[in-house]
């Protein structure tokens, strides 16, 4: 009956098989081999790459990355939601233009923009120059090479990834629901918490996923803006692949990370399903 269904599902499966499943299998296999100085891996099965992960250092690094990615996601959410809300529900005929204006800065290289942020925060950067000239401070502020600089850089980089899914979702919000709630006597706050947020939850989840997951493995922002004084998961994995030439360890950490993330999302999905049988999201 359904040729369209067959073709769509078939195409998707074909694509993912070749370009997603096979590479993942390659990585999974690499993660259980032993590293070898001459040929990168020797085909000896071992689980030591995984048991190594359970040592103190790696777990600390995992936690630090978690904390950074989590803070970044939360800040992005708080900043993006009002923005997406206002733009999505505005009556302006320039709506899509406003959205595009958000994205356009991100078509310049993110690396260059990070350097621009450095130029703003440096000891002789714009902020310090202005504040010194106005006499508000007498010594330059050390804004760069700090944890807050890293956070600013992250938020800046990931903001569109939160705004776009939120926008796509809020745009669909039926104003009649809001009117109905207000007719029934709810104030603005209750309307927001009990109606608007649950209805836009899929967008919130999508945005959080698109920010949190990549943020766990980013590495050049902490290097450039944080002075590389901290080590995050991204740096750790890069280290294993490049400096230690320990591809199996790098693969194992990546697989481990992927499994944890998927488990987290799965747990969330199950719990939200239990709350409301019909509630559908990832």
């Amino acid at each position, binding site marked *: 009956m359904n040729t*369209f*269904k067959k073709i769509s*599902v078939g195409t*998707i499966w074909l694509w993912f098989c070749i*370009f*997603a*499943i096979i*590479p*993942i299998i*390659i*990585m999974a296999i690499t993660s259980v081999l032993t590293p070898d100085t001459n040929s990168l891996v020797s085909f000896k099965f071992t689980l030591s790459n995984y048991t190594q992960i359970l040592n103190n250092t790696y777990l600390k690094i995992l936690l630090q990355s978690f904390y950074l990615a989590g803070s970044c996601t939360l800040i992005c959410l708080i900043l993006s939601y009002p*923005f997406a809300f206002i733009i999505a529900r505005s009556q302006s005929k320039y709506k899509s233009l406003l*959205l*595009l*204006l*958000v*994205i*356009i*800065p*991100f*078509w*310049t*290289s993110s*690396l*260059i*923009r990070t*350097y*621009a942020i450095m*130029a*703003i925060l*440096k000891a*002789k950067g*714009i902020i310090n120059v202005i504040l010194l000239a106005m006499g508000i401070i007498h010594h330059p502020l050390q804004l760069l090479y700090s944890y807050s600089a890293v956070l600013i850089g992250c938020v800046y980089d990931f*903001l569109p*990834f939160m705004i*776009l*899914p939120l926008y*796509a*979702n809020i745009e*669909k919000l039926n104003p009649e629901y809001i009117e109905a709630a207000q007719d029934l006597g709810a104030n603005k706050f209750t309307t927001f918490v009990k109606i608007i947020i649950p*209805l836009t939850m*899929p*967008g919130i989840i*999508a945005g959080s*996923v*698109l920010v949190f*997951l*990549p943020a*766990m493995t980013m590495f050049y922002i902490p290097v450039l803006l944080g002075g590389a004084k901290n080590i995050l998961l991204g740096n750790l*994995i890069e280290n294993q*692949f490049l400096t230690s030439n320990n591809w199996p360890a*790098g693969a194992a950490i*990546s697989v481990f990370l*992927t499994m944890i*993330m*998927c488990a987290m*999302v799965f747990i969330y999905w199950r719990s939200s399903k239990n709350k409301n049988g019909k509630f*559908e*999201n*990832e």
Partner: protein
Amino acid sequence: MNRIAKHIYPSFIYLFFYLPITVVIVLSFNQAERSLIWKGFTFDWYTDLFNDFDLLNVALHSLEIGLLAATVATILGTIASVSLFRYKFFGKKILNGLIFALIVLPEIVMGISLLLLYTIIKLPLGFWTLLLAHITLCVPFVTVTIYSRIVTVNKDIFEAARDLGATDFSIFIKIIIPLLFPALLAGWLLSFTLSLDDVITSYFVTGPNFEILPLKIYSMVKLGVKPEINALCTILLGVTLLLITMAQLALRKKQ
């Protein structure tokens, strides 16, 4: 009060976005080669840029890959999210998990494993390997974006359309796509952005005769940010703004 907030808050966010961009533009006229502090006005970097055909060629490559990858990824992502929403099929849960796995997977892992895959099937590195890698990178992002919108659609619409005799294909084209249009646009924009900016995966899968812009920029900043790069970014910015304005005007004329 509310109306003021509605205008002020977005303006703050735009300011946040565009401040570093302004810095990039300003620095492209800076007379210093390696310093990030203002030392004087000059057009030198722009003239350097116009004589650097290599850099322009590289930028063109990136645009090519970006446009193609975004379009194909959006198509695939749409099909994927629609299938996940509407149909029950073998391995549905696995596919779901796979999409997440792809977003989590560190780019260096993706890059190296794709490189190993290409080596095994003896595919020469270059345009095609890069394009396929970028599409693979972008599809999960598009899928997640579009899925979040499609879950709010009432399945009864499809039932009604089926009862009226429509095939799945025409339901897809005539109902689903128009319904999802903002999400499709968002997904396309996201993919284009991802592709234009991707360094790590691209580093591993591209070949000697197909250099792309983010890699070029990445290696150029190793020497300190040459203002030539700022000039390039400024021009890119200008060109995209121009294209978008033209597109908007064209759309308006149609209406």
